[in-house]
């Protein structure tokens, strides 16, 4: 490790936005053929730093030394041409073009003697690149027909098409199943062996420990240190990130849950129109029930069908002993079902509206005189929920766009608590949320259960499911195949069910 050449050096980088010092004198180095994990809570400055590296932002102070030479990028295009590629969390491919076109996009496209594009050459070069990373994707396929994981491979091939020396991966695993993540990791190993340096941004601890060589940690825009991955542990890393100790593995005090009475929510053989799911489950008062399973096992679809966002084909939803029809989200909300959906940006947030408006959206229709909103009542409600859930925002009129992921999520949870739901459905409640806010959200969920709320949580992170749930259902290929209670809940049992196995 020690004798590797340093490929990139950042010296004293400072970048300010109006009112905020986003990066404050940050110095980090990157060596050939290593995986450097970049860690930090949301808002710590990770993405700003990466945008400085790839030429989107120009720092006010500090130097970027690349291949031993001081550089200053004119823009992302120049950085890309010089070998710095970024793979964004949300993939930036053109879905209606072919794999080949996407792979060579931005590279020098081969042309024939008339100056027209030579398509045969495009496809064969794309094929070569794909094969070099062990993929047999057909270059003439449309990108829109690929899975997310396959699209990621296209992104990586594209990065290689311009002979990238540095590849920055921003939460690449967020939308992948565990099998696909394994594939991604072997690809990263391959890239390492070719001396490509990789910056890996992720919130998932297990991944960091699996794949990275070193972890650089940022906190509040400042560089706080670098750890050699195999000489440290999770707690030390978290401590460095948040500057205080946080126990995310806190297990709820074993609370007696009465499972003899009527369940709050009881779902019987609920299926959807696309035959993706067939779900049966119960949730009792004050209980936190987890739904585990691999990506694509139908967990989110089940929640969405209960909530009426997807039409149910057959089966029953029973709420407090009464059969209900979830025709659409509206009727589900009226019945007292709440859903915090998986994708905050696409399904929850009104980005351009204020934090307050985002919180009070469900209560507004119920607080009116002649169609006019009772502003005082609503403002007080917004204030209260902001305080209760500790949503950190300069004021309620500030656009929710400017909040960190964790605070956005707390605002969304506040929105749903405002209707005092009978059952709260949470789909990936801590995705894209930093460690500190994660612990807060766990506390909120526990507290809700203590107050008698029933909570149904879907999560891809096993530690999260395990530490939160009183009971866990495991889904496999759309069906609920296993049920685990209290002490029987463990990683091995869940994975056995999730992969279609049976417990001995």
């Amino acid at each position, binding site marked *: 490790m020690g004798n590797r050449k340093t490929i990139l050096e950042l010296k004293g980088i400072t970048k300010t936005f*109006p009112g905020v010092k986003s990066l404050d004198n940050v110095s980090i180095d990157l060596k050939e053929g290593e995986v450097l994990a970049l860690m930090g809570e949301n808002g710590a400055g990770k993405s700003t730093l990466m945008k400085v590296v790839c030429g989107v932002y120009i720092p006010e102070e500090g130097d970027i030394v690349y291949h031993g030479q001081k550089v200053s990028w004119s823009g992302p295009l120049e950085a890309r041409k010089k070998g710095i590629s970024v793979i964004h969390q949300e993939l930036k491919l053109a879905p209606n073009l072919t794999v080949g076109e996407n792979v060579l996009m931005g590279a020098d496209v081969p042309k024939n003697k008339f100056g027209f594009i030579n398509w045969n050459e495009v496809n064969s070069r794309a094929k070569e690149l794909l094969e070099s990373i062990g993929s047999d994707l057909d270059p003439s396929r449309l990108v829109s027909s690929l899975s997310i994981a396959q699209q990621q491979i296209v992104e990586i091939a594209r990065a290689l098409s311009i002979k990238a020396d540095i590849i920055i991966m921003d939460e690449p695993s967020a939308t992948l199943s565990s099998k696909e993540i394994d594939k991604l990791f072997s690809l990263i190993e391959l890239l390492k062996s070719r001396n490509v340096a990789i910056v890996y941004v992720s919130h998932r601890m297990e991944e960091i420990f699996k794949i990275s060589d070193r972890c650089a940690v940022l906190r509040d825009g400042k560089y706080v240190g670098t750890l050699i991955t195999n000489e440290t542990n999770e707690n030390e890393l978290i401590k460095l990130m948040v500057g205080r100790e946080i126990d995310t593995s806190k297990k709820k005090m074993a609370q007696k849950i009465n499972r003899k009475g009527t369940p709050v929510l009881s779902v019987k053989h609920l299926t959807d129109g696309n035959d993706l799911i067939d779900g049966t489950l119960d949730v009792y008062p004050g209980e936190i029930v987890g739904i585990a399973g691999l990506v694509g096992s139908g967990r989110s679809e089940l929640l969405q069908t209960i*909530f009426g*966002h997807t039409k149910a084909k057959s089966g029953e939803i029973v709420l407090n002993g009464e059969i209900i029809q979830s025709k*659409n*989200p*509206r009727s589900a*909300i*009226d019945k007292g079902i709440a*859903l915090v*959906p998986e994708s905050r940006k*696409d*399904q*929850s*947030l*009104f*980005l*351009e*509206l204020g934090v307050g*408006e985002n919180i009070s*959206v*469900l209560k*507004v*229709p119920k607080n*009116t005189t002649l*169609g*006019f*909103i009772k*502003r*005082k*009542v609503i*403002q*007080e*409600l917004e*204030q*209260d*929920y902001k*305080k*209760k*859930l500790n949503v950190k925002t300069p*004021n*309620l*009129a500030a656009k929710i766009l400017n909040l960190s992921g964790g605070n956005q999520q707390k605002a969304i949870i506040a*929105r749903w*608590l*405002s209707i*005092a739901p009978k059952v709260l459905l949470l789909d990936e409640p801590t995705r894209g949320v930093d460690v500190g806010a994660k612990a807060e959200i766990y506390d*909120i969920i526990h*507290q*809700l259960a203590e*107050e008698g*709320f029933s909570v149904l949580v879907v999560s891809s992170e096993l530690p999260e499911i395990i530490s939160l749930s009183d009971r866990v259902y495991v889904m496999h290929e759309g069906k609920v195949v296993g049920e685990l209670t209290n002490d029987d809940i463990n990683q091995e049992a869940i994975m056995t069910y999730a992969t279609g196995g049976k417990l001995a």
Partner: protein
Amino acid sequence: MSVSQVNTKTSTVESRQGNIKQSVFNFLNKMGIIVVVVLLCIFFSILSSDFLTWNNIVNVARQTSISAILAAGMTFVILTGGIDLSIGAIVALAGVCAVYFTGFMPAPLGILCGILVGGAAGYVNGFLTSVTKLPAIIVTLGSMTYLRGIAYVITGGYPLMVESSLFKSVGTGYLGPIPIPVMIMIAVFVIAHLVLKYTVFGRNIYMVGGNEEAARLTGIKVTSSITWVYTISGICAGIAGVILAARLFSGQPNAGMGYELDAIAAVVLGGTSLVGGVGFIVGSLFGALFMGVLSNGLTLLNVDYYWQLIIKGLVIVFAIYIDRVRRKKG
């Protein structure tokens, strides 16, 4: 602390003071167009002694009233992320219908019928957009053509003359010193402002435009909200159509050509985003005033009409560009 229950007695006094400061700032930030209109007025009043006279001010206000009313309706549509290209045709159709109905019923009733025809045409636009999920630009491109066709069919291609003096006064009369069209324009904007700012329906419009999926998942009636904004746009176009017919003393099937584009320009100048979810009705009023003041001032300076078109077009693009830059900084 209980998370599930809310103490409604929490004092909000501190936050309110913060809010006032914040809202003044927000107002100025959003309302760059007001500053621009004021500067433009100063500019013209220096160059032409006729500009800052009562007569001319009244004149500008009256000329602006029609495009401002259209812009008000268009603001609702654009806030949901839609567009309405048919309002020019609705202006013609509603004007023609109002004059036609006034031929055999009292003028107020005839006028109302004309406005309702506008509303009905808008409702059809909204229904097709929200239910069939066709792009609004296609739906209203179609209705722009067939609505004008209907106007031609009703009149046989000739203008229908207005006989009623009450009808004429809608376009030419005064209420005290203020022209009636200007009074109507002010009323339309006051109502539109109240609806957008203080009603559930108004909030829903911003939410549907900001994030349709999230709106649906929070139980907002997306389909009916969209249907209603086009209906409102149709009603506004109906009102504008009646005023125009009253000013011209006739319902003309070829009236209002290209008005939709002026309205869109006014809305965008006023700072409303074409993507939806962001915008402000007062901005649209000043957007329309900007265009009115500009052509009035140029006319007073004896600028040739052809050159006025060139200047107007370039100024619109430039003004929107400046606005973008300013916003990105903020």
